[in-house]
């Protein structure tokens, strides 16, 4: 039984990683073929860094992710504070609306936002599909994640603290920044990081709201349709390396934190 579970776990991980390793291996292949090995090379990496389209897409992706994550974090945090102190039925309605983008299939969210932008563009002549619509769309699908990661921190907080600060002479704004905000910072950071990664990773919603603007996932998609360029393997390898380093770093930090706490 022990042996069986080990073999089984190994096979599942093999299934999950084999395709990624195939991509990585062929990113160093000195031929356009994706099945025959023709020697070691870095040329696809060189070509990747000279590919203006990809570099543009990368900078678009990062700009959109930073702006929409920041905006979503600010609006989402304010919203969470408001929801937390509102009456039961208001809270219920707003939480239900918050859940809509999370429960809906991505393609429906994408299509509905596309209809909205087309409608606004036709009626008012503003919001041509592009960076602005992408930021608006990304901010919208990030918002629920911020609200849902800040809410639990607010619930854990002792509501008397805020009142105590006010009794001691803080005005409401000062009481919020001095007392409430420090308590909920971890939730805010989690929400912002989730928004940032979701925004970078998003393809489906961007696909319907981007017009001709390219983000990295959209550029990847158009590359896969051409089916020839090994540059895409090089790109996957780089992204895999970055993700691996980040996750290992995060985990090492967590283990360190645990050790410190145990001491």
């Amino acid at each position, binding site marked *: 039984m022990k042996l069986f579970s080990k073999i089984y776990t190994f096979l599942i991980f093999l299934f999950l990683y084999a395709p990624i390793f*195939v*991509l990585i291996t*062929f990113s160093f292949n000195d031929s356009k073929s994706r*099945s025959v090995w023709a020697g070691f090379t870095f040329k696809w990496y060189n070509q990747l860094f000279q590919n203006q389209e990809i570099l543009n897409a990368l900078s678009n992706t990062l700009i959109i992710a930073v702006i929409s994550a920041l905006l979503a974090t600010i609006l989402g945090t304010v919203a969470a504070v408001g929801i937390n102190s509102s009456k039961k039925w208001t809270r219920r309605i707003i939480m239900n*609306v918050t859940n809509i983008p999370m429960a809906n299939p991505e393609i429906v969210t994408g*299509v509905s936002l596309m209809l909205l932008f087309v409608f606004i563009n036709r009626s008012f002549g503003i919001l041509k599909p592009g960076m602005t619509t992408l930021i608006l769309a990304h901010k919208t699908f990030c918002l629920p994640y911020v609200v849902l990661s800040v809410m639990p921190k607010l619930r854990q907080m002792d509501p008397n603290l805020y009142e105590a600060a006010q009794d001691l002479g803080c005005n409401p704004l000062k009481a919020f920044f001095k007392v409430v905000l420090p308590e909920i910072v971890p939730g805010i950071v989690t929400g912002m990081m989730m928004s940032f990664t979701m925004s970078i990773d998003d393809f489906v919603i961007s696909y319907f709201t981007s017009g001709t603007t390219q983000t990295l996932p959209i550029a990847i998609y158009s590359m*896969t349709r051409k089916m020839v360029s090994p540059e895409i393997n090089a790109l*996957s390898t780089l*992204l895999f390396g970055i993700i691996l380093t980040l*996750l290992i770093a995060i985990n090492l930090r967590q283990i360190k934190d645990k050790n410190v706490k145990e001491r």
Partner: protein
Amino acid sequence: MKNRIILAPYSIWMLIFVIVPMCLVGLFAFTDSSGMFTIENILSVGMYSNVVLRSIWLGGISTIICLIIGYPMAYFISKMSQGNQSVALVLLMIPMWMSFLLRTYAWMTILENNGLINNFLSLLGIGKVQLINTRGAIVLGMVYNFLPYMILPIYTVLEKINPSIIEAAQDLGANRLKVFLKVILPLSLPGIISGITMVFVPAVSTFIISKMLGGGANLLIGDLIEMQFLGSAYNPNLGSAISLILMILIMICTGIMNQFDSEDSNGGLIV
């Protein structure tokens, strides 16, 4: 009063970017291109019932396969030592962080006619097998992309089960199979339910996986919607009607699933 001011920006934002777009989908679904009311669009979705059924069928099969191979995996991970558990979880999450486009692209290169598997088969003297552009390839792509979404929620539930409950069942004379069927499985039901929803919803509404691995012949609902909005068959009214039906389909599925879930968690509360 003050609360209303704090909530106003968020409420207005959600109204404009969530509620209004949903209403637009509804509006487009029930009007024709000149804006007149019609139920023609909804009716003509019937013409594509084979596509709808195929999506449900392939999404359903993928969900079941994910459950069958994901459950043991979640169970084995929950039985590992604490350190190994966190390593296993990180290993599960790394592929999830890679763009699903790249993961699917990887399978394209493996399955294609001159791909790794076929080259290997011809080395062995067996002829080439058509792997890509089949329904099997779509199911494989779905299982590959969504398997972690099945394993993680089941693991979370299994890991929380109090071992003394299992010991108690054993003390009372239950054999291994009985312990599993009567204790572990019912207690892990909430995880199974959320796993099923987390796999089925994206699987049934996907349009990239079918396009990349299924070729043009195996259209799914997602492809159909995409074609009406960005593809050759531009018709946002029909596209909205299909989206509306997809939404209702998924609402029904999650509704049924939540039914199971709430009953079970109520039972759990009494314990």
